[in-house]
């Protein structure tokens, strides 16, 4: 069989399969079958393949391995097919219609009613129930299709049915009911889905989830394009994107697309509506899928990522607040106000009167901090005995100034207390810092803290952290005018920002661009070596340093 003949036969056979071949095309096919006996075998093999694809689990079994290698090839169909269209022979295709052409389908259509009646009769036995499904849909083979990748405070409907990280979800499982908490599923084909409780869902395949009710957010890599979320009244097919779906118990569904585009399919087999919903758009579906209306996008409404280890629940915020980390939080506002770390002991503390007149003097040893996964350690800087160690990996701050090894008030997430005499809280450029709306790390000289930004990156599943932004200075509320400090930002011990000789009320903007390989970000406040104080005052007196709104910017 030559190539042209095969190409024509392929097309005629496929059109026939889909009931879209015209009378002339069927006659042509039969003519070919008579003229080329080898085509008869070929046509039987062709339909055998089609039957297996349509009704068996052969596609699932094929398991579509190693998708990552193919990412760049996904859905670049247009160029290829444009070329095919140019070179292929002209073939008439009847218009696609919801109902098959009358001439081709009159008998089967007439049959439908009888078919239903027959099925109702058949339904009178348990076997018939199973039969119906056996005959209409494939009988699925039990396969693991997703795993529980992350979980934060999950409570399942059946408490005894504990689902642990790494446990598999199977395509044949009963629907799962997550009463509360948040989980993240990783589908075998690559999509990651965060489900917020309360929700009922089932993982139908390695690229499909059914959401009966609840909220989920899907992140679908390019190679897993086609990931599908089914709800009772709508189907959302991903086209390489991120989107949130909220399915309510009353049947209404909301689709919010944050990146890429999706196809929203509603209606039933007789009348299907297909609508593209692209990034920045949202739709509400109601009335069993027949009413679709535009709604405003809720960009920060869905939990997009979670981290079991840190309890991180990320809703698409663009920054990680370092002050919140200092307060024991996850960087998104869960930290304790006026909570911080004592660089002398390496312990959490809560700021209070006990610290008002406390000026400890300790060694400059680097103290690893194990109580928070994003904070590597703390120290009291002093370059008198050589370079200061500033990370758990031994990175050194070569030009660390000599200090008196004394510090005040610890490293604290904000404050509104008045314990210096210069006014309540912290202030720079006339703006109050250290509050919920304008967080700050209060880091009086001489103290240093190192953040593990690689750990943050990991928790955010590789999200790019592009830079550190802040404003730094000595608070206008400092106890006296004697303050004079140097403030540093280090990365792997290397100075990336320094402002020396800062005095009370002075401030400057900090921007440190970060590379993908950067791991440790260190903030340091030390008394300026040139500082003079009257006799009887501590050398660090008045060095009320702060980093205002210190954030890591996420891309």
């Amino acid at each position, binding site marked *: 069989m030559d190539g042209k003949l*095969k190409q024509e*036969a*392929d097309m005629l*056979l496929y*059109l*026939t*399969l889909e009931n879209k071949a015209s*009378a002339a095309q*069927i006659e042509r096919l*039969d003519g070919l*079958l008579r003229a080329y006996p080898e085509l*008869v*075998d*070929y*046509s039987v*093999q*062709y*339909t*055998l*393949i089609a*039957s*297996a694809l349509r*009704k*068996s689990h052969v*596609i699932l079994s*094929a398991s*579509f391995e190693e998708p990552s290698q193919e990412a760049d*090839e*996904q859905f670049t*169909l247009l160029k290829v097919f444009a070329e*095919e269209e140019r070179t*292929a022979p002209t073939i008439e*295709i009847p218009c*696609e219609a919801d109902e098959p052409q009358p*001439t081709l*389908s009159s*008998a089967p259509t007439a*049959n439908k009613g009888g078919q239903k009646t*027959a099925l109702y009769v*058949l*339904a009178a036995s*348990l*076997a018939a129930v199973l*039969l*119906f499904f056996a*005959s*209409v849909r494939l*009988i699925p083979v039990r396969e693991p299709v997703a795993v529980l990748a992350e979980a934060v405070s999950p409570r399942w409907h059946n408490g005894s049915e504990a689902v642990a990280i790494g446990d598999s979800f199977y395509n044949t499982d009963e629907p799962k009911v997550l009463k509360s908490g948040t989980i993240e599923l990783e589908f075998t084909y690559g999509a990651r889905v965060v489900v917020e409780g309360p929700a009922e869902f089932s993982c*139908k395949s390695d*690229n*499909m989830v059914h959401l009966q009710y609840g909220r989920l957010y899907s992140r679908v890599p390019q*190679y897993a*394009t*086609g990931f*599908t979320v089914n709800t009772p*009244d709508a189907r959302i*097919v991903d086209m390489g994107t991120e989107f949130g779906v909220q399915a309510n118990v009353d049947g209404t569904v909301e689709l919010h697309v944050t990146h890429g585009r999706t196809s929203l*399919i*509603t209606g039933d087999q007789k009348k299907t509506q297909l609508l593209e919903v692209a990034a920045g758009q949202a739709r509400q579906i109601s009335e069993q*899928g027949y009413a679709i209306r535009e709604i405003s996008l809720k960009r920060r409404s869905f939990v997009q990522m979670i981290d079991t280890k840190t309890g991180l629940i990320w809703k698409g915020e663009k920054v990680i607040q370092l002050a919140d980390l200092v307060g024991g939080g996850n960087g998104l506002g869960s930290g304790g106000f006026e909570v911080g770390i004592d660089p002398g002991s390496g312990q959490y503390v809560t700021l209070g009167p006990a610290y008002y007149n406390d000026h400890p003097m300790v060694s400059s040893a680097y103290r690893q901090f194990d109580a928070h996964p994003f904070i590597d350690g703390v120290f009291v800087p002093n370059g008198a005995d050589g370079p200061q160690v500033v990370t758990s990996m031994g990175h050194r701050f070569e030009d660390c100034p000599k200090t008196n090894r004394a510090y005040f008030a610890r490293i604290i997430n904000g404050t509104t207390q008045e314990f210096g005499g210069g006014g309540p809280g912290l202030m720079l450029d006339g703006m109050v810092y250290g509050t919920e709306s304008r967080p700050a790390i209060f880091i009086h000289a001489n103290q240093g803290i190192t953040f593990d930004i690689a750990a943050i990156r990991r928790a955010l599943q590789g999200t790019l952290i592009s830079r550190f932004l802040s404003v730094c200075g000595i608070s206008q509320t400092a106890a006296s005018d004697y303050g004079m400090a140097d403030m540093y930002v280090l990365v792997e011990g290397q100075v990336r920002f320094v402002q020396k000789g800062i005095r009370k009320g002075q401030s400057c903007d900090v921007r440190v661009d970060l590379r993908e390989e950067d791991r440790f970000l260190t903030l340091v406040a030390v008394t300026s070596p040139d500082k003079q104080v009257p006799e009887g005052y501590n050398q660090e007196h008045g060095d009320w340093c702060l980093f205002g709104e210190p954030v890591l910017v996420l891309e």
Partner: protein
Amino acid sequence: MENKSDFVFVPKIMDKEDQVKSEEFLNLLMHKQMRIYAFILSVIRNFEDADDVFQDTVNTMWQKYPESRPIGDFAAWGIQVAYYKILEYRKKQKRNVHVHFDSELFEKVLTAAKSVHLDYDDRIDKLKKCLKKLGPRGRKIIELRYYQDLKPQQISELLGLSVLNVYKIMSRLHGQLVQCVETLQRQV
């Protein structure tokens, strides 16, 4: 939107013997249904009508099963039942002369279908291998059509292609799979 039936079933309480028969029948059908369906499709040639004939076939098989037991070759029996259902279908379709072939061609196709189905299981194993050999684009579009159960029209809208292109792609993919399976069959 799940692929759910809108039928409401009310299971009858069966006695134990009936239950055993039902389970036995179901078990056999589960393992052999694909062969029966493949046979039907190879003769009927379009999914829609093949589904109906298959449904009729299963219905009759279920009704005849108690009196036909024990059945040595369930698939062969099913294909035999299907054969009569196909004949019934052909009678109903008489007026649409263009939708099915004449008797001579019909016999040829029947013979070929029976022959190909002798090594059905082997061919399905090969098909799994061949699916893995398809490029990602091909596998994706196959998945959309058969696994996600989208119609060509929907796929065309989803991918921004013309419907014509979807048909072309699908026809070629089926052809590639046939060739691949044949090649592997010959290597055995």
